[in-house]
């Protein structure tokens, strides 16, 4: 199904550069150009053979050198019943993509959540603000380099008496031991 979809996207939307990628296991996905995302989504939603009428979820992932946003859509029709993971790769310093709120109203909350957690800016969103964290929170929690702020509105975020120090020490010790074992066996150390 994915190969046909790639041909369809590339023939209908110029410059979309759709490519498919498959992992060692699990589901395949299609990656398109960020600038053409809205056009691709519009085409997929209105295409008579696939008609992805439901946007299930928007996932953002921080891959350290770029941010990937995945739009998972499905067709709720017993005869079609397709499911697709559509991805865009965005610049990590300036992640910007067109909002798809006009196509699926579900995108409203989902895009707000992606912004809240990863700092992806969705252009032309009708009500663009944080959703789960407080409005005046700083930083984007699901970025890999996120460090929680120490004081928020005069409150200490992680007070010492609430930290689980023995657990932390134990985990640090275990991690050090693992690293030493990996170094001893000559294998490359596991990625953090």
């Amino acid at each position, binding site marked *: 199904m994915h190969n046909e979809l790639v041909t369809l996207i590339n023939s209908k939307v110029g410059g979309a550069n759709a490519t498919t990628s*498959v992992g060692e*296991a699990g589901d395949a996905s299609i990656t398109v150009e960020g600038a053409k995302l809205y056009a691709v989504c519009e085409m997929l939603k209105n295409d008579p053979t696939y008609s992805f009428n439901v946007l299930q979820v928007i*996932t953002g*992932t921080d891959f350290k050198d770029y941010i990937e946003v995945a739009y998972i859509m499905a067709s709720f029709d*017993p005869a079609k019943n397709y499911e697709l993971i559509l991805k865009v790769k965005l610049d990590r310093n300036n992640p910007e993509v067109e909002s798809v709120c006009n196509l699926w109203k*579900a995108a*409203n909350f989902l895009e707000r959540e992606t912004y809240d957690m990863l700092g992806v800016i969705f252009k032309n969103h009708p009500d663009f603000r944080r959703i789960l*964290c407080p409005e005046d929170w700083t930083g984007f*929690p699901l970025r890999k380099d*996120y460090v929680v702020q120490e004081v928020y509105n005069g409150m200490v975020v992680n007070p010492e008496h609430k930290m689980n120090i023995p657990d932390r020490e134990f985990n640090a010790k275990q991690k050090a031991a693992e690293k030493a074992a990996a170094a001893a066996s000559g294998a490359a150390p596991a990625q953090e």
Partner: protein
Amino acid sequence: MQELGLVKINHDGQEEALKSELLTLNMGPQHPATHGVLRIEIKTDSEIVAQATPYLGYLHRCFEKHAENLDYRGIIPFVDRMDYLAAMSMEWGYVQAVEKMLKIEVPERAEYIRVMVAELQRIGSHLMAFGTYAIDLGAFSPFLYAFQMREEILRLFEELSGARLLYNYIWVGGVWNDINKDQLDRIADFCNRMEEEAKKYNQLVSYNEIFVNRTAKVGIMDEEMCYQYGATGPVLRGAGVKWDLRKNRPYSLYNKLEFDVCTATLERGVLGDCWNRYIVRMNEVIQSIRIIRQCLDGIQDGIVMAKVPKVIKLPKGEIYLRTECPRGELGYHIISDGGKTPYRLKVKSSCFTHTSMLPDVAPGQMIADFVATVGSIDIVLGEVDR
């Protein structure tokens, strides 16, 4: 404040301009009708809701960030704490996604047990929805009846897993503990009594005239709106769409089992209103009993745990797997980089999507009807905020 307009009144020849404004009212964060810590800011024009804005995040624990630092087995207890009223269904979806990545075959007995506990959980969750919905609308005693039956399910789960609400029972490769003959007999007995009880509930609440007047033709979410917002579960089926993942994308044993997909019955009200969403749940209880009975007939002796590697490492890749939970579709999107912990774990929560429908359905409703609408979509805030 939004200006509605000026009303000119003539008092003894003196013209006076009365300005009418919208009143802002906060429903929550502690409010019995929101079933948890949800705040909805309502702008009202006397008794009519003009605008409703949900404010989420009061129960936000950033489970997705936690999951990035936990191994695949360690995530299961965290998953429980999302939808704490249907923890078994939450676990099952997650575990299936991991098993599919690892290509593990689950023993047949374990599959039967999983289907049974998931359906019992569905009954338990719908009983909770039934009881609290009646309380929202001012009837107290149905809640007590519902909790009496739910208690038996919880007792059984407690014997199976050691916990009453957050089970950590369904593990990667099977289930933690085998079920014995006595417990199977008790499930069969429970099914018989539950069927009788369900009739009582229908007499007491479902076709009660006061209840019907409060819920029929209230809070209409039609088919087009459901697709727009990606609504699933009883909300979508209440709009008359025959869509159930157990039938449309069967997983586990569901293609062997016989059951009907419950949709809006239209005995009262119109498509997509509160009453039809409610009756879908009540009918699903009966279908769940049917499924459990078939499982009780089909279950064979055997092992309940497959061989699973000691340290679970998922192959590089990603998976999106969705299952049908009591409140709607639950999806897990796992991205793995080949390590011991997931690189990214995203949960598609049905309650989150259903909450996003509230601003659209609220305008024009009475405040009391809005309470009925919030109750009828049956949200659990643990799953909304994650």
